[in-house]
């Protein structure tokens, strides 16, 4: 695993998130469920709580957008770049953006698995950079995984606990 330069991390143990926009590929309720699951995957390993808010500025703002979307990192149409997220910090820090030109799926059909991608991007939002371990959710290329047995790798757990400690520290 690797961390971002300067090891940015959240200093509060309650992190807010807000879904600013949705994809047309999945019902909003499914996107909400998958995001909650992705946050839970991380929070089960570290002493952080994630709280959803519906308005105002949250620590982690989540949106779907296509092409140029105002952050100097435009998306590139279907395939190639799927999403990106920013390291913890003020302003755009922690925000996660997903390319609406992808075909997002909940795993029940072909396309880009939103749960895997969201879990990866939220890893960035929490302070993890890319891992060289192909078993890690923080590996940079998209790999189709076994939905039923999807879990963080030891590499992911070591990385995130280096920043936040483990759940026993609650």
């Amino acid at each position, binding site marked *: 695993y690797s961390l*971002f*330069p300067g090891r940015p991390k959240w200093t509060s143990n309650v992190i807010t998130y807000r879904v600013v926009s949705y994809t047309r590929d999945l019902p909003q309720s499914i996107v909400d469920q998958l995001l909650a699951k992705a946050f839970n995957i991380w929070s089960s390993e570290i002493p952080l709580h994630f709280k959803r808010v519906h308005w105002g500025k949250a620590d982690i703002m989540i949106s779907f957008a296509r092409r140029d979307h105002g952050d100097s*990192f435009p*998306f590139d149409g279907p*395939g*190639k*770049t*799927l*999403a*990106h*997220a920013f390291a913890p910090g003020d302003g755009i820090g922690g925000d996660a953006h997903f390319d609406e030109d*992808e075909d997002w799926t909940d795993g029940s059909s072909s396309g*880009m698995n939103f749960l895997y*991608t969201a879990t*990866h*991007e939220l890893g*960035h939002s929490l302070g993890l*950079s*890319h891992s*060289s371990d192909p078993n890690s959710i923080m590996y*940079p*290329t*998209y790999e189709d995984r076994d939905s039923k047995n999807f879990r963080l790798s030891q590499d992911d757990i070591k990385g995130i606990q280096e920043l936040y400690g483990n759940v026993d520290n609650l």
Partner: protein
Amino acid sequence: MPLEAGGMGKQHWELVQNYLKRYYFHDSKTRVKINFEDKLKEMQKFFGLPVTGILSSHVTEIMQKPRCGVPDVLE
């Protein structure tokens, strides 16, 4: 093939250049010419491939996979 060799098509060469520029950090403010062979070696090291500085079909296969937009190597 050696990275600097002219034996590849323009589109292929642009793919390689854009990928290395985007995901293997360089500071554009220093105006130092990007050494693509060094960047390729960084990529090979990151993905656990033999560090040769030589472009292989395996490398270009990785470059064509869907991926996260965050760079692999940051300074």
